[in-house]
């Protein structure tokens, strides 16, 4: 199974550096994936702010994958799979950094920072 996949990878190696078609597809997809979030925010299409935020974050995530595939030519085969491994490792660190900071700092703010009124009320 994995042998077969490896074989297949060697055959279409020219694909790694992109073709006019792949660049054009990537560009068109990016334009669409950029235009929709801007339209959603500028014209306030969705009723609630949190829905809009979630939707535009989802669009960003999809567009990042599109850029990775069509512009950076990411795949599991390039450089013997090391680029993909490095990317996965980095993504894990990024998720820990981002979610960890937001989570910890949100709770610090919520639980430990007294507001001005509370400070004045303190003896």
């Amino acid at each position, binding site marked *: 199974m994995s042998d077969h996949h490896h074989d297949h990878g*060697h055959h279409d*190696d020219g694909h*790694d*550096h*992109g*073709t*006019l078609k792949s*660049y*054009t597809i*990537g*560009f068109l997809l*990016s*334009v669409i994936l*950029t235009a929709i*979030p*801007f339209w959603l*925010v*500028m014209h306030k299409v969705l009723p609630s*702010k949190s829905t*809009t*935020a979630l939707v*535009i*974050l989802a*669009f*960003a995530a999809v*567009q*990042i994958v599109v*850029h*990775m595939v069509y*512009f*950076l030519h990411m795949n599991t085969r390039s*450089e*013997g799979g*090391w*680029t993909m491994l*490095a*990317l996965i*490792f*980095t993504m894990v*660190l*990024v998720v820990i*950094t*981002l979610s*960890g*900071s*937001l989570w910890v*700092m949100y709770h610090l703010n919520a639980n430990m920072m007294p507001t001005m009124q509370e400070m004045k009320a303190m003896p």
Partner: protein
Amino acid sequence: MSDTTLNNRFLVREHHPENGTLLGFWLYLMSDCLVFACLFAAYGVLGRSYAGGPGGAELFDLPIVAANTALLLLSSITYGFAMLEMQRGKVGAVQLWLAITGLFGAGFLGLELYEFHHLIEHGHGPQTSAFLTSFFSLVGTHGLHVTFGIVWLITLMIQVGKFGLTTANKRRLMCLSMFWHFLDVVWIGVFTFVYLMGVL
């Protein structure tokens, strides 16, 4: 050495990369990604701490951001065209597309500097609030990357003009290609997380 032997040797190196430059450069980009992750995390934590100053909804001008995004996206595809011409070995076309990419990049930088200048002029500099500090750090770092990308691009245009599409120059162009597309990926995060979510 004829052009075909150069090409053949180049392709062979591509199939079995003995030279780790591209992988090494990818690792550098990943470490750069961590730098941006820290700046994004700082903005995520401090982005709503206005300290009585103005917030994103009052400060951000979305049409300018949309224009910036369009410029960067266009520069990405023109760099792609340069890479395609590089594979065909056409020096003139490579130089032309690189020049167009550089102009788009310069346009992006010009608009961003105009935005920064506008903000600082109206007293909304980085010292105003934690929100603006983290905003200027994140967007400024990205802008600095674009600046160095343009410097690198001009250097490579001179290199290609002087020595042609040698193996070394092709490798350098591929590294810059990764760098340039990577900056566009970071910009997706910036315009979504900072600008669009800032005006919500």
